[in-house]
């Protein structure tokens, strides 16, 4: 039903940093890492599934050294766009930044996503990020910076733009922190941003992930050990077709896609009387998912609920498809009061890259 457009690979959960908000609790001590041959074989099968973009992330993907360019090259051979997500830790000097980026650019990298915020600042100097962003621009990479925030964060998208001297075409975005992984332990008392929203999950089934533990996950895997979100606990590339087909027929995944985890929690509360946290205590969709799948009282009734709700979930998806409104942006738009339709993710990127008129802000 819902087709994947992005395939993410968590190459490793090892990271030179150990940020307080990290949902994977990554650090230099964490050793989970995918076998490079498994990664290559997986990538070589992606082109047959209509997937448009391969995202290499972690942990820190640049720790994979010479393997990272191999993965990118393999993805390009499949006709995919490629993205690497990094803290940019390697860019202590302009020369070092250019050298490491040059390796992946030569392999065909299209997009570089830099994670930067108060939490990263404890481990990486902003000059490093500036070096990496500058080198990326020299290579004509599309640069994106993601700033994770609490209500009291010092780093904002506006500040990043100002201090980075960001060009119009670059993307700087803010994301409210979700209290999962290490954040659940270390940021429990931090005030959450008020403008966070809970809604349909546009990533489930549109962006499956191969975790660094070798599991195929239905979404981007912020809570990677959650059994309900695992499509295949022992993934093999030759099973990708069957795994994705099975996932597409899941009531749970379709429901998460159409309404999101907090709406499911509300429905369970209304129909089964289970207690749920008030929305102001939930940092975002992933934190809502964590509650949905970790509360034993909910686990007890969830299968019954999925069977009961199934016909309406299928009906809703079916109807939205008939309206041409079943793509992620349209589904999200429906619940945020805006309808934006028929625009695919890659087109958004392409639009971002189109030269702007001189008068553009």
């Amino acid at each position, binding site marked *: *039903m819902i087709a994947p457009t992005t395939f993410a690979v968590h190459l490793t959960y090892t990271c030179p940093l150990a940020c307080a908000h990290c949902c994977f609790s990554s650090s230099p001590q964490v050793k989970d890492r995918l076998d490079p041959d498994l990664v290559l074989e997986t990538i070589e099968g992606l082109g047959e599934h209509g997937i448009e973009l391969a995202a290499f992330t972690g942990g820190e993907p640049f720790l994979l050294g010479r393997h990272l360019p191999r993965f990118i090259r393999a993805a390009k051979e499949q006709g995919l766009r490629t993205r690497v997500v990094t803290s940019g830790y390697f860019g202590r000097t302009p020369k070092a930044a250019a050298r490491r980026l040059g390796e992946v650019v030569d392999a065909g990298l299209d997009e570089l996503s830099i994670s930067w915020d108060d939490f990263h600042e404890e481990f990486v100097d902003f000059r490093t990020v500036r070096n990496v962003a500058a080198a990326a621009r020299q290579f004509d990479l599309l640069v994106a910076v993601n700033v994770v925030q609490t209500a009291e964060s010092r780093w904002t998208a506006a500040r990043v733009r100002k201090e980075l001297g960001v060009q119009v075409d670059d993307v700087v975005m803010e994301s409210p922190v*979700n209290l999962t992984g290490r954040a659940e332990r270390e940021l429990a008392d931090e005030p959450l941003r008020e403008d966070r*929203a809970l809604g349909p999950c546009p990533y489930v089934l549109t962006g499956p992930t191969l975790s660094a533990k070798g599991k195929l996950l239905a979404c981007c895997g912020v809570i990677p050990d959650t059994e309900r979100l695992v499509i295949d606990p022992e993934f093999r590339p030759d099973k990708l077709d069957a795994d994705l087909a099975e996932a597409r027929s899941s009531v749970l995944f379709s429901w998460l896609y159409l309404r999101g985890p907090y709406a499911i929690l509300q429905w369970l509360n209304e129909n089964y009387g289970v207690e749920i946290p008030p929305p102001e205590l939930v940092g*975002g*969709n992933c934190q809502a998912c964590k509650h949905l799948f970790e509360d034993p009282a909910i686990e007890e009734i969830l299968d019954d609920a999925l069977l009961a709700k199934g016909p309406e979930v299928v*009906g809703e998806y*079916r109807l939205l498809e008939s309206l041409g409104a079943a793509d992620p942006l349209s589904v999200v738009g429906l619940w945020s009061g805006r309808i934006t339709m028929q625009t695919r993710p890659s087109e958004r990127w392409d639009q971002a890259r189109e030269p702007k008129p001189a008068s553009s802000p």
Partner: protein
Amino acid sequence: MSPLEHPLSVKHGEEEIKIGDQAEAEQLSTDLQNPETFRAFAQDPKGFAGKYGIQIDDTVSGRLHEALDKADSLGAFQQDEGEVSCTAVAVAMGAAAVSDTKAALVI
């Protein structure tokens, strides 16, 4: 993939949940192209879909009614407004922590 290529069922465990049938689904897609029928649908999405064997709940029915009320036809409804910024959408969705972005930074 055309909507009509999708299965009219989903699975949960061993249970298969079916809805409607292929002929009814095709008829719905066809009928929604007709502005007059589309207006009838927009007034009562749940009741209209029910005639084609499609169940939806009151919440989405109300939401669709609200969204479609001012559209004269399916074509008008489907026009891409093209104004929602990547950031706005991502934030509106409560995009999570770093790794949400790691998988799909911009949708």
